[in-house]
């Protein structure tokens, strides 16, 4: 508070000096201050590292069997073996990379489409907005996984198809959120003044609007990755992913196909399932803290858990309420 008060003491200072922790740096600061961000980043970072290092650290091959069918966990095979006699630990380490790449690629597609539709719709308004939002509405109401199943089933099982199908159907939520944000930014004074100074649409969008919706896009992307990874496992479970690729999804599918459930071989399923769960929790924690930082309204609550005290909340962490 004090820095802002000091810098606004004179009008000149307010115009020249960077006014305290605002804008992108403020948001970043807010995000990093939360414990959930650190925990989330740690989880995702650990999974990423182990996926990158998997060729060096995985104890066995993922193509040549090294033990018996559904051998339980032992000293030699920490997480046991799957239905083809492959080491589950090695499989999960290897599968992580592919799963995360699939999730990330699908998210990139979805974010590109979502941001483009959202910005076009929100910035230009009028018939562009009506048309794009109508299309979005249709996409929004169709159960995506069912459409994904049909497209992937007709198109043929392949990882590339899975990426495209997930990416092409996942952008609707992002488009709506970005549109709403762009609509409000468009009306702000500075954007109008820049337009008055003769800036073109391209310059306004790329220099003045996109940086403002950036954090929101990142928050959306982080949540979207979880959905993409989730959808990949679901499609893989239906046999629509590449049957030869090792992903967290196909590991679970192969285990189910080879009747791990009747063999009671939980170790063939649980590690991959838990890896997905950890990844999703990690991303979710990061995504939520970005959203929290972007939504100052959440910091106000007139009904506190502790008795009936009403406290001034300005400048306090959300946890203080």
């Amino acid at each position: 508070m004090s820095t802002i008060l000091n810098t606004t003491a004179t009008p000149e200072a307010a115009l020249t000096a960077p006014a305290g922790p605002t804008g992108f740096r403020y948001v970043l600061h807010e995000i990093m201050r939360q414990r959930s961000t650190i925990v989330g980043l740690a989880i995702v970072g650990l999974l990423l590292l182990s996926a990158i290092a998997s060729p060096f650290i995985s104890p066995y091959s993922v193509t040549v069997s090294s033990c018996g069918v559904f051998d339980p966990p032992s000293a030699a095979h920490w997480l046991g073996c799957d239905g083809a006699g492959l080491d589950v630990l090695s499989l999960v380490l290897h599968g992580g990379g592919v799963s995360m790449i699939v999730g990330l690629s699908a998210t990139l597609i979805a974010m590109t489409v979502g941001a483009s539709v959202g910005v076009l719709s929100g910035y230009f308004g009028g018939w562009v907005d009506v048309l794009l939002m109508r299309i979005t509405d249709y996409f929004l109401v169709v159960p995506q996984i069912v459409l994904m199943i049909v497209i992937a089933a007709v198109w043929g099982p392949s990882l590339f198809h899975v990426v495209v199908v997930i990416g092409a159907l996942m952008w609707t939520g992002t488009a709506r959120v970005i549109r709403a944000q762009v609509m409000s930014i468009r009306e702000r004074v500075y954007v109008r003044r820049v337009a008055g100074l003769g800036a073109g649409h391209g310059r306004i969008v790329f220099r003045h609007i996109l940086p403002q919706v950036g954090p929101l896009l990142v928050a959306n992307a982080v949540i979207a990755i979880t959905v993409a990874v989730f959808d990949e496992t679901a499609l893989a479970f239906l046999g629509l992913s590449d049957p030869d690729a090792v992903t967290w999804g196909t590991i679970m599918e192969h285990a189910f196909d080879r009747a791990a459930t009747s063999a009671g071989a939980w170790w063939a399923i649980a590690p991959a399932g838990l890896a997905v769960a950890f990844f999703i929790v990690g991303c979710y924690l990061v995504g939520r803290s970005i959203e929290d930082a972007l939504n100052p309204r959440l910091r106000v609550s007139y009904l506190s858990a502790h008795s009936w005290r009403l406290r001034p909340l300005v400048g306090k962490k959300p946890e203080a309420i």
Partner: protein
Amino acid sequence: MYRSGYVLRRVAFAVVTIYIIATLNFLLFRVLPGSAVTRISRIPNASPELKAAVIHQFGLDKPLWEQYWIYLGQLLRGNMGVSYVNQQPVTDNLWTAFTNTIPMVAIGTILALVIGIAVGVLSAVRRGTASDHIGTNLAVLFYAFPTQFLGMMILIFAAGVLPVAGMSDAFELDPSTWGHLLDVGKHMILPVLTLVLTLFAENALIVRSSMLETLGEDYILTARAKGLPRRRIIRAYALRNAMLPTITLIALSLGSIVTGAILIEIIFSWPGIGRALYSAVLSRDYPMLQGGFLVITVTVIVFNLAADLLYAKLDPRIRA
């Protein structure tokens, strides 16, 4: 009569969406590379005459618009073709599957709603306390579990205690209606449990954040200033308003209910529509695949419409 205008608009939107989906359903199987058409005519060692005969039998030699016209006409009469696998009309197959799915999914969804709202409200009202942390973290954890993982774990650890496959016992001892219902109910416990565990979390998180936003509104402050009891503020002021965005979000999560139901039906061999879709995928039974897609999608659209109309009933601002 602005109210009926709104209803009409929503119904029209739903009808148009269903029409688009039906068209998409037609095109997907004809336009995509490796589509049904090329697959059907790709019979190993088939003579050109046989190929031509098959293509003619399926009417694939007609121009596309004529096929489309025939398709729409048949669809309106409830004819979705014949299953390649069991040679029965797709409509009959799907109807049986549909009636098996509905009770399981309905019970699961309602339970998940009740539990989700309870957990969400409790954690929002007790924000920052131990019960909030437990509730929220538990919800995040279950939200993160892949449905198939949770289902298979439940199946493995409950095998022997409760029935884990199918909808009823093949060697039923008690053939009376009540005995049968009890048997189906027993078979339903584990699938429903899995569905509830995967769904309640999302609901809880949605309700919690919606409640938190509402608790920051000025009318809550006013209500407190008036000295209203805490319970009444939560119920009549906060929860009521928090339910509005919740209904929309839950309606939009219908898709994830469908996803969950498909995976759960596969794991627990529940003879429902998700399993029908799955076997259609496995055996490349295109008529069943098309029919299943259409039925599930139309159901979701109809429920979405219902949520929209409910929303309008609860929030007068929407109707304008």
